[in-house]
């Protein structure tokens, strides 16, 4: 089964660019990615730029899209990245999710992928 792992964390508390903490975090993600690539579970995975760069789009009534600058959701944690991983079942998915660094500096939501055939 394929699962999406949605990584949430407080981006305002993220390490500064150029800080050793950020290097450490990037290395931790690199190690996890390498592990799931080696095991064959890896399908996709990306980090996202922070919400300041986001645009929310809704289809307008007359064909021109309505855009909003950023999600501006009043939540403590924001979506900051994702993985798509192949796992035998939810047990395996939960174990992998716990190894993603975001599980320590935020949280990971595990969602099975809906196979719309």
């Amino acid at each position: 089964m394929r699962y999406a792992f949605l990584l949430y964390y407080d981006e305002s508390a993220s390490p500064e660019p150029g800080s050793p903490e950020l290097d450490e975090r990037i290395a931790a993600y690199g190690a996890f990615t390498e592990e799931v690539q080696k095991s064959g579970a890896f399908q996709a995975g990306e980090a996202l730029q922070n919400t300041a760069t986001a645009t929310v789009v809704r289809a307008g009534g007359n064909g021109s899209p309505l855009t909003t600058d950023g999600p501006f959701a009043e939540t403590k944690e924001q979506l900051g990245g994702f993985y798509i991983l192949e796992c035998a079942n939810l047990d395996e998915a939960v174990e992998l999710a716990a190894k993603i660094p975001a599980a320590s500096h935020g949280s990971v939501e595990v969602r099975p992928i809906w196979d719309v055939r």
Partner: protein
Amino acid sequence: MPLVDSSAAAVERVFREEYGRVVAAMASWTRDLSLAEEAVQDAFAVALETWPGQGIPNNPAAWITTTGRRKVIDRLRRDRTLERKYEHLVQEDTVDEQWLEDEQIPDERLGLIFACCHPTLAREVQVTLTLRMLGGLTVPEIARAFLVPEATVAKRITRAKQKIRDAGIPFDTPAPARLPDRLDTVLLVIYLIFNEGYSATAGDALVRRELCAEAIRLGSVMSALMPDEPEVLGLTALMLLHDARRGARVSPDGRIVLLEDQDRTLWDREQIERGTALLDRAVRYRAPGQYQLQAAIAALHALAERPEETEWEEIAALYGRLAQINPNAVVRLNAAVAVAMAEGPDAGLELLADEELAGELDDYMPFHAARADLLRRAGRTGEAVSAYERARELASNALETAYFDERLAALQ
């Protein structure tokens, strides 16, 4: 076929007894609890039509499973979308006719209970689903037992069945590395079901007795399927021993009777023997756990024919070990009371004087009631009065308030 009672009521009874086993067999085949349940219900409808005339088959579980499999395949054939989704089921269509009569169907209940108690389901969902799937309790029965609306129970079950199917919750006994944690959850769920039936005094007495019986039945099934897991045996022993006192726990006018005041001739001796026999089997594995220790304490109470024959020293030692495994404040309170019974009130009071413990239990009525009782017995009347007054403040019903009034009056 044997000529036994095959009335509709007898069919219902057999169905109820076999429900968990049959749903488990169907679920391990379909990997879908909704499909499994519908098929079992369809098969039951056929049984209600044919069994009263033809008699109940030798192996009702196998009969229902075979009939249920046919119903699933019929349903898939009628519905192309479903058929595509469950292709693998239709392909292995050769339903084994041999199953119909005497063959034992494989027991898949362990896989089902581990799925129902999966840690990614909320606790109340685990409890509800276990009662529905393994126990065959109906939605209205579960709603009455937990005093929640039927719609809430129904929604919980529907949502959980969907999550199990679509999120890939496995129908298996967990791998050895995961087993200890997963088994803890299953045992906790069973014990919660038991306590819901045993502790609460509100609600329908019949439904509550049913919950205890169901928890004991689940424990017995687990004990049969995992005979080398001492905590499984320990929990089942614990529930049997507690439940053996049921008849003496409430007075005819509905008051709770304390252990020391219970009429011990009302205790169910046969059930006590079953409990202690299971506990004996468990301790041979030399892997003590919280359920075995609690069962050992319950067994010592059960074996004392009169309150003054209770072996308090041993009970105090067992509580001490329990506090090491599970160092929560209530266990430490019980340990202190046992020490007081063994060595005198001062020894118990000394343990209760621990500031951290007293702080943690400050809002817990039984703490003040126990402390008051020990102070009274130590002759420290003034302090006993204020402890009883504090307990009275925390009393949650009129019976408790009346009890403390009585105690206070006796001291003045």
